[in-house]
């Protein structure tokens, strides 16, 4: 397990939410975040590994890091 050096302004815990729950939760958090803020999404569905980068690409936001933890993934997204 790596330690990453990003301090998110907000963490959204979408573990247990069926897809597309996690992506919707991330979009909701980014919507209300300040420009430049980093939001961290915790998700335990594999689908997020494709959903999240697809959306950040489309929206022009940066996916700073994706971390695999024991039972979930962490996605760090910066609002443009």
């Amino acid at each position, binding site marked *: 397990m790596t330690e990453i050096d990003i301090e998110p302004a907000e963490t959204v815990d979408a573990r247990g939410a069926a*897809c597309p729950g996690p992506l*919707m939760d991330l*979009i909701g958090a*980014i*919507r209300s975040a300040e420009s430049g803020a980093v939001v961290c999404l915790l998700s335990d569905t594999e689908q997020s590994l494709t959903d999240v980068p697809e959306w950040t690409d489309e*929206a022009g936001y940066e996916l700073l890091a994706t971390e695999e933890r024991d039972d979930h993934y962490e996605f760090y997204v910066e609002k443009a």
Partner: protein
Amino acid sequence: MTERIVIVGGGTGGTVLANDLADRLGAAIDAGDVEVTLVNDDPDHVYKPVWLYVPFGQREPEDGRRRLRELVDDRIEVRIDRVTEIDTDAERLRYRDAAVPVDYDYLVLATGSTLAPETVPGLEAGGYDYYSESGAKALREELLSFTEGDLVLSVVGTPHMCPAAPLEFVFMADDWFRERGLRDEVDITYTYPIQRVHGNPHIAEWARPLMDERDISVETFFNAESVDPDGTITSMEGVDLDYDLLVSIPPHRGIDLIEKAGLGDDGWVDVDKHTLEAEAAENVYALGDTADTGVPNAGSVAHYQAGVVGQRIASEIRGRPATATYDGKTLCFIETGMDAASFVEFDYESPPSPAPPSEKLHWSKLAYNESYWLTARGLL
């Protein structure tokens, strides 16, 4: 000692539950051992699915209203008031119109969804909706005189009530303009926040080819950021769409006091998705839209959940272990035009598989809407 059950919200879930408890606990209520209060902030019970038909001039908003008192068993105390504060440690709540707080032994939150269009700048001024009674009436005025231009249906917020209703609206609009010989003059565009046309991949896969066949344009990954009431909606993804008529599914949230009571974020109560017990407090249940179970916000869900909560509370009052659980059952008719509909049924384990659209299913949906009043009364 009398056990006091308070149900907050006399919509679909709360009303079905009140009648269910009257049925299960009738003798105990008659003996004065149990007291059930149903609190609603409107003397009427409102059946929201009627609003889908209002903009097309097919139903009147009054068709979705009945006096709550007339739908609920006489053994239930119906209180027309608003709950303004909940203290789950003291097991006590406050009513807007009462000087002193009231104690409860069991509390059920069935407070539904509220709309929050103000969270998107320009949306209130620039868009219409059919997710409120006033919205459906205003949209009717606009739609009935709309004969040409760009009609945009934008799903702005999720979760929202009845995930099928945005698809239903564009399918109905397509058919309705076609029948009236106006379809060539009206362009219909549907926007959705994620990469497909519906949250559920099975329903999205079924709906997308139908939309293509019927010339309904689709914009996915479209999350409205602002609306210029002069006729442009702009997404967080940087896309501008021009419109002549904007119909939105506004952002939804639960009521504020749920967050204040520490029961969950944005007014949605964190619950165990099987027992429907609140995660953060004892003797508190939530059902329907306000219970955060991940299943759709639908009347059918509220109805099934009410049966589970009714059975659990009755068992607890009788001192027996509560065994009833909710399995995620959801049932939904989906209009695919003005005279055809599909149908889906699914739960936590089994995905939906939409039935081929037919006229019979359309009439089943309309028949269900009529017989809904028997459901609310607890008879069906």
